[in-house]
């Protein structure tokens, strides 16, 4: 993908499968979101092919309009800067996600106006699906709130619910854990594992929170300056020298206040020690 003289994504090839969580990580500006924008039709890649296989049919995403990618190929996404409909209620946000289904069922309004059974049934099903995801992301008690008034973490969950209400086969999440606290990102992990295992779709994840990436991903892809520098399971990637140099940084064991360490589970102490402050590194980038 080229923007004028700038090559944002350079000759990238990778595969994401259903029933798998595939994470894309890499330094800021490496081209991660650009990949999402190509997949979902926001950009047309300058060269290359994006193939999505669904029920034996192949969709060439780079040739499709964005709305068809969502409707026919079944790719849904969330955004780094939350893009809900802030003045609509939480429930309405989930109903809008099912606009395509409902419009078809209503015979493009007519059946809806006449209240034909086919439409009322479709509407009931849409409500059921919305309720299912509201419950799953813990927002049932705030279904009538304006989405814009929800706290940040809840808006993030609502975005995932809205994407799931389009019944996608591939769910693309752009930094879903950003701005979440420890408890919330733990809940996010459980939600994503559930989507993978029980709904059985593929999840593509851009994320900087390694406690999410390394724990739930089946497969990690690392980008730097638009190129793939590593590809493998979490263990392989986290030990890859190129990834450590470009992205993770090297670890140093340093002191943690003793009274803190004593009181914490060993797993957490290890994690914290690996995050101790270190002197500024010139070759950090």
């Amino acid at each position: 993908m080229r923007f004028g003289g700038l090559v944002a994504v350079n000759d990238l090839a990778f595969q994401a499968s259903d029933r798998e969580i595939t994470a894309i990580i890499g330094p800021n500006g490496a081209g991660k979101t650009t990949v999402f924008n190509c997949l979902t039709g926001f950009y047309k890649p300058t060269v290359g092919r994006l193939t999505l296989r669904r029920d034996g049919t192949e969709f060439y995403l780079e040739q499709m309009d964005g709305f068809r990618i969502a409707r026919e190929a079944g790719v849904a996404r969330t955004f780094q800067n939350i893009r809900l409909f802030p003045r609509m209620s939480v429930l309405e946000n989930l109903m809008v996600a099912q606009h395509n289904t409902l419009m078809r069922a209503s015979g493009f309004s007519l059946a809806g106006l006449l209240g034909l059974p086919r439409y009322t049934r479709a509407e009931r099903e849409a409500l059921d699906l919305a309720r299912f995801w509201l419950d799953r992301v813990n927002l049932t008690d705030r279904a009538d709130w304006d989405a814009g008034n929800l706290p940040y973490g809840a808006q993030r969950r609502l975005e995932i619910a809205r994407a799931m209400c389009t019944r996608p086969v591939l769910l693309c999440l752009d930094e879903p854990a950003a701005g979440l606290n420890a408890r919330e990102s733990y809940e996010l992990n459980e939600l994503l594992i559930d989507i993978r295992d029980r709904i059985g779709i593929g999840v593509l994840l851009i994320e900087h929170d390694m406690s999410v990436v390394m724990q739930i991903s089946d497969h990690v892809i690392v980008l730097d300056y638009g190129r793939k520098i590593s590809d493998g399971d979490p263990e392989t990637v986290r030990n890859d020298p190129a990834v450590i140099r470009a992205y993770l940084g090297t670890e140093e064991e340093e002191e943690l206040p003793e009274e803190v360490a004593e009181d914490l589970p060993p797993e957490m102490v290890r994690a914290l020690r690996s995050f101790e402050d270190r002197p500024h590194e010139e070759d950090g980038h």
Partner: protein
Amino acid sequence: MLTVRGVHTFYGNIEALRGVDLDVAAGEIVSLIGANGAGKSTLLMTICGNPRAARGTISFEGEDITHEETYRIVRRGIAQAPEGRRIFPHMTVIENLQLGALVAPEEHFKDDLRRVFELFPRLRERQTQRGGTLSGGEQQMLAIGRALMSRPRLLLLDEPSLGLAPLVVRQIYDVVREINEQQHVTIFLVEQNAFNALRLAHRGYVMVTGRITMTGTGRELLTNREVRAAYLEGGQPTVRVGG
């Protein structure tokens, strides 16, 4: 340096701040932690006068700034790197930084610019690009860089680590400590990443639904069982683990 007394802030009927008392002394790093929706960002924004406090007073270096215009508050030496980046998307990186420097004496511009570029080499590479074409993380760097360019005496940081790569997060924390120690900039920091925020801070506050419920040194709060149960433990550590 900064004194907040009995501040209430509303969004329509919703009372986001319900009587906040808080102090930041000159030279300190103070962290504010709390759940999503507790009102942390609202407090930072209220300090800058947008939205206004409906009741209570905010004073900076002994002078009441509760009802002062935001641009005057900035001229007093308060800068904010806000949540959601809020950079100028149609201006280049350099222009964004120049705007930050508008309230600083001109002779410092070159040095300050070099310092920001040393901190974020990515911004140097992208200096002629428009802000809106930067990636999310790069915009976050630009928002922090722009705040630094104004040479603030009090720097308000709203989730500076949001959306940044693990390596860059560490650099940001190093830089916060460095500008505090070497340039004596006072820091008031809001973070979801409570562990890092409290480890960095001299003092911390905990906010729950618009009220301050606890305060202490960073270490005191880190070791406090209630704080840990509420903000630090999620069944697993939330720190960005690199290895």
